[in-house]
């Protein structure tokens, strides 16, 4: 279904199509329109997600971890200082193999205070073992959210991920987007049924335990999961491409086969870079 959506609404549609069970978030400019879009959908009855109010971003992530540890698919949304505030629980989520997906409406981490994105928030957490999907436009936001759940919840990965869209540049701008149909998304993304995180009174387990002696082995598993993610991402992108006609990959290239120099970029700037490459080629510079 083709429709005119803002980047914020694209994220809300992605959450709805992924059939998220529980979401919890704390408002921070510019994630507020995303949260409002999600709450509107819940109030209309078009989305069955349970939204839990949190007292801060740290609380929101804690709620998501709690829900994920009993087998719910969860979503959290934040940026900038809020994302840095929940830092402690990001490590908990990746260490406990809980595939939470966070929507990051990227904004610079102050000081100096600001509202535009320089990816300082999501890139500052590279060490926390999160997969990061950085989106160029609203279409990629919807597609990345659906694929992020599929990739994160894969048994070979089980790592949380971030779907990053730039605050204001992408969240508050509108474009024509092709929203996938729910039945088609259901073919790609089944219900979340974890084998490692559940509550069963007949089979008690303890999650998030501590260890001195086994730390190396457990961290190695996390590292290997991140390596496995490369293969899983390629597989899921192929599956997505077959269903919806849009195939993504680890890296997208534009006219690089005969280029004299290559510019590497991520986010909304890539749209402009493509135009510039064409302009420069007309002048004779092969980018």
């Amino acid at each position, binding site marked *: 279904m083709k429709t005119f959506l803002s980047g914020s609404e694209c994220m809300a549609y992605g959450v709805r199509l992924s059939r998220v069970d529980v979401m919890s978030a704390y408002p921070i400019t510019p994630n507020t329109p995303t949260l409002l879009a999600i709450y509107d959908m819940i109030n209309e009855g078009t989305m069955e997600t349970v939204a839990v109010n949190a007292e801060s971003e740290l609380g929101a992530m804690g709620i998501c971890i709690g829900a994920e540890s009993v087998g719910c698919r969860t979503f959290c949304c934040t940026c900038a200082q809020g994302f840095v505030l929940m830092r402690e629980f990001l490590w908990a989520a990746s260490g406990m193999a809980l595939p939470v997906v966070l929507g990051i409406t990227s904004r610079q981490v102050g000081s100096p205070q600001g509202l535009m994105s320089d990816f300082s928030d999501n890139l500052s957490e590279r060490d926390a073992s999160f997969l990061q999907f950085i989106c160029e436009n609203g279409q990629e936001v919807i597609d990345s959210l659906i694929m992020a759940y599929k990739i994160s919840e894969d048994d070979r990965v089980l790592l949380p991920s971030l779907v990053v869209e730039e605050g204001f540049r992408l969240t508050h701008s509108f474009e024509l987007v092709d929203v996938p149909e729910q039945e088609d998304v259901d073919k790609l993304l089944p219900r979340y049924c974890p084998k490692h995180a559940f509550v069963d009174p007949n*089979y008690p387990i303890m*999650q998030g*335990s501590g*260890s001195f002696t086994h730390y190396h*082995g457990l961290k190695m598993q996390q590292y290997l999961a991140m390596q496995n993610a490369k293969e899983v991402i390629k597989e899921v992108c192929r599956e997505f491409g077959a269903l919806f006609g849009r195939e993504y990959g680890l890296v997208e290239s534009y006219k690089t086969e005969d280029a004299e120099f290559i510019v590497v970029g991520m986010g909304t700037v890539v749209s402009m870079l493509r135009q510039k490459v064409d302009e420069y080629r007309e002048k004779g510079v092969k980018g």
Partner: protein
Amino acid sequence: MEKEYIRGATIHAEGTTTFIKTGGWRVFKPIIDRVICRDCKKCYWYCTDNCIEWLSLKEAFLLAKAPIAIDYDYCKGCGVCAHECPSEAIEMEREGEEI
């Protein structure tokens, strides 16, 4: 050396803290003087590790134990029971040798 690790450091068991006998951490060992102790249960309420057993008189008779008994498998020798006992019935004795 191959080892199987469960992702997320999840332990498939319950009550595993009881497997570790923290009594081995002790330096001072509390000994209750049976003659002075009047079973007031104050040490039971104050014990920081829940190591003191409070048996009913019937259980104590059947098991041939005193109604108040310290579980030395888990007692860490903190000395709070000796400090709180109103009849000063508990002595903290040095365990092992002086280094």
